[in-house]
Each structure stands twice: as C-alpha cells, then as structure tokens.
C-alpha cells in the first residue's frame, strides 16, 4: 500500500508537469474534482477499547473531492477520505491492532465577503466517519456523525496561485459504538478541523494543491476518547 502511495505521488507530479505547462488559463470553471494523497500522522486514545494512553498511527491517506461554485460564488463541496493503518504503542505492543477510517464531508458555504482577491465564506458542514478496529472476525466499529460551523477564506495571490484555509468547529456529535449510542455537544465534545493550502493553476483544466490538515476530537466521558490527525497532502484538481 505504501509503495502504491509513492507511485501515486510520482504520478501526480508527472501528470501535473505534463499537462500543466502546455495550456493557457481562460474562463474560471465552476466545478472542481480533486484527488489527493498524503501522509497522515495520527494519535489516538480510546480507553473504551484499550488501556493505552496514546496509540500512534501513521500512513498514507487518500482523498477524493468535488467542489461546485454557484453563480453567487457560494461553495458546495463533498469529500471522501480513506486511511488504513495500524494502531501502535511501544508501552503495550501486544495491544497493537489494525485501524481503518473512512470519512465523508459535505459542506455548503455562503460567500459573505469578496473584495479584490480576498473572499470569505461561512456555512455548515456535515461530517460522517466510520472507524474500524480490525480484529479478524470481531471487528469493532465506531460511527460518528457531526454537524458544525464552517468558514473558509481564499486569497488569489496572482493569476496562477492562491492560498486558502478552512476552519470547522463541530457543534453536535452523534456517536454509535458497540455498546452505546449517544449525542454529545459542547459540554462533553470538543473538536476542531483546520485546513490550509496552496493552489497552483497548471492550466485551464488542472490545478495542483498542497494541503495541511489538522483534525482534533475530544470526548469527555468515563472512557476517555481523543484523536488527533495531521496530514500533508498533494493533490490534483480537474476543473470543468
């Protein structure tokens, strides 16, 4: 799997170089399809599942996204993430286990400010997530569904380059585990999702993006749960 990721990185770079410098930018496109891959640095505490104060899990992450800009410059986006890794601890290695995460995000952001090269958006995000603790025929699942307030800014440096950042603060979380289903809000659940990125327009139809993602979730329950993910991603966008 890791080898495949390296090839993908190479493929993305080669693709962007090949198609990038042979085309000319014309009208801005309304739709953007993105594929990206990168490296995830994760840390997890789930005392319901194991007496381990911190698991680390690193590995390649794959993202597929779609973004549409409306006539009013509002943004609708959907993004799916996939990560397969191993939860590792040096303290009690016998409790290491495989871990898979699948995420799905929908967001709708209204353009609330736009002047010169600077735009600000505000809206809502829905975030669905399934975490699988792989144990052969006894896999354990956690299903999360949260809704949060999302904001985004973008700054067009010049015709080809742009900076963008997105911040999401989840407000409510529905969490289903093997033994419970509960709803949490600010008093027991705190989270933050932040993304910052750089986009380089290669051509009329293709952009190259570099992203840093930060995701944090904390549940204040008897069996403490905390998860932190930091990711560095390289992606290519197809605009149409």
């Amino acid at each position, binding site marked *: 799997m890791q080898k495949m990721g390296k090839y993908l990185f190479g493929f993305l770079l080669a693709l962007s170089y090949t198609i990038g410098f042979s085309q000319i930018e014309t009208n801005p496109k309304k739709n953007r399809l993105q594929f990206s891959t990168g490296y995830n*640095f994760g*840390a*997890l*505490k789930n*005392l*319901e*599942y*194991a*007496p*381990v*104060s*911190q698991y680390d899990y690193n590995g390649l992450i794959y993202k597929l996204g779609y973004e549409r800009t409306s006539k009013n410059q509002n943004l609708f986006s959907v993004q799916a993430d996939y990560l397969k890794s191993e939860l590792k601890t040096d*303290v*009690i290695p*016998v*409790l290491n*286990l495989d871990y898979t995460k699948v995420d799905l995000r929908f967001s709708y952001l209204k353009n609330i400010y736009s002047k010169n090269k600077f735009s600000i958006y505000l809206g809502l995000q829905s975030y669905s997530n399934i975490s699988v603790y792989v*144990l*052969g025929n*006894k896999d*354990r699942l956690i299903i999360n569904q949260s809704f949060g307030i999302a904001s985004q800014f973008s700054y067009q440096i010049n015709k080809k380059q742009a900076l963008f950042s997105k911040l999401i603060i989840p407000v409510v979380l529905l969490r289903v585990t*093997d*033994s419970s289903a509960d709803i949490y809000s600010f008093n027991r659940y705190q989270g933050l999702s932040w993304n910052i990125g750089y986009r380089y327009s290669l051509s009329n139809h293709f952009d190259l993006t570099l992203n840093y993602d930060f995701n*944090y979730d*904390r549940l204040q329950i*008897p*069996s*403490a749960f*905390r998860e*932190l993910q*930091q990711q560095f991603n390289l992606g290519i966008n197809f605009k149409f």
Partner: protein
Amino acid sequence: MKHLKILFLVFVLIITSCTKVLIGDEGELDEDIYLNYQTKTDLELPFEDEWYVTAGGRTHLEGAHHFITHGTGQRYAYDIFKVVDGSGYSGNGGTNEDTYTFGARLNAPGAGKIIAIENNFEDNTKPGVINSNIGSRNTLAGNYIIIDHLNGEYSLLAHLKKGSIIVSVGDTVTKGQEVGQAGNSGNSSGPHLHYQLQNTPNLLDGIGLPAQFLNYYEDNVAIERGEPVRGQLVRKN
C-alpha cells in the same frame, strides 16, 4: 532558503509537542495496571468442579470484555461456565436446566463484606434469549453480589440465578464460603458466571483490575498464581 528551513523545523516542533498535550495523559493509570498490577486479595476460583473460560485474558482476542462494552470495571472480567466431560450441557441444551452451570454453587472468591446484592431478577427463559426488560445499566448484571475485600478491591459476581443468593448486605464472608448459584439473569446469552475485580464499590464503574487466582489448575496444570485465559478448563483442585 535558510528561513524556510527554520520555519519548517519550528512547525515540526510545534505539531510534535502539541500531540502530547492534546492527547493528554488519561490512561496512564490503566497502562500501569495492565503492566504491573498484583492482586492484593487472596483469591480462589469461586466455584466447584471444572469450568470453561469463554472470556478471559489480556489480549483483544482473548477477552470479550477487554473492550469495555458496559462500564469501565469489566476490562479484565471473566465469563465462565461449568462443563462435565467436556460438555456444557446434557440433553439438547435448549433450557437453562440442561446446562451444568444453571444452579451450580458459587463461592466468595476472597474474604470480605457483602456490600450489594440483587436477588429478584427473572432469569432469561432459555439460552440464546434475553428478556426484553434488559437494557438499563442497572439490569445488565441481573442478579449479582458485590464483595468489598476491605483493601481497595471489590469482586462482582453477576448473572446469578433468581432467589439463589444466600448472603445479605453487611454479612462478612470467608474465602470459599457459598454465596449463591450461577444463573442466566441480566445481559446473559446463556447460563454462566461473570466475574470481575474492580477498584470501586459501584456496579460496573471504576477501573477493572486483573484478578490473579491462587492455587488452581489450568488444563490440568497446577498454577500457584495466575489469570485464566480464554479456552482453558479450570478447577480449584
């Protein structure tokens, strides 16, 4: 370029150090218990004859309760049922009474004081069927006994047979003293004993503790001090 390098190093330093802070140190006590805990109470297996360990052990696959499904006290809990000649039941096993476990004598695993009991919960009608009134936290254990070992350790014996408990709250018990009979009450898919050791007196709360029993047999091998694991046949003598 030099500035970029410094910026990158600062960034890496920040994200590395913030991981420790954001994940926090909760769970370090759990780790210490897992690695180092030595049971204080002189415990013996709380039953007569030979029983089969269906959940017990420290790994994810051995301990069905290793993943805490109902309350933090049950991390190291055992599920055990009685066997005779390698079988858990006579007949077709379709009734509670078919099993060797239902009605089997249970003893206090260690000396202490009875601090809580529930004795009036209906047993599930047969193996594989759980009564519809199970669900709330208080009903999961069915009929149960909690023993305070007066040293910070507490034993919970759960899923006992309705009306079988012969001790009362406040009684002092000695190791090996009969306290009731195994049953099929509460969140139980068949007659068995659920036994756990924990560090608080509350039902299903606290932190689960490894329960090391003294002087018993695991698969016919004499053990001076040990923790039975899934798949073993165990008996006192």
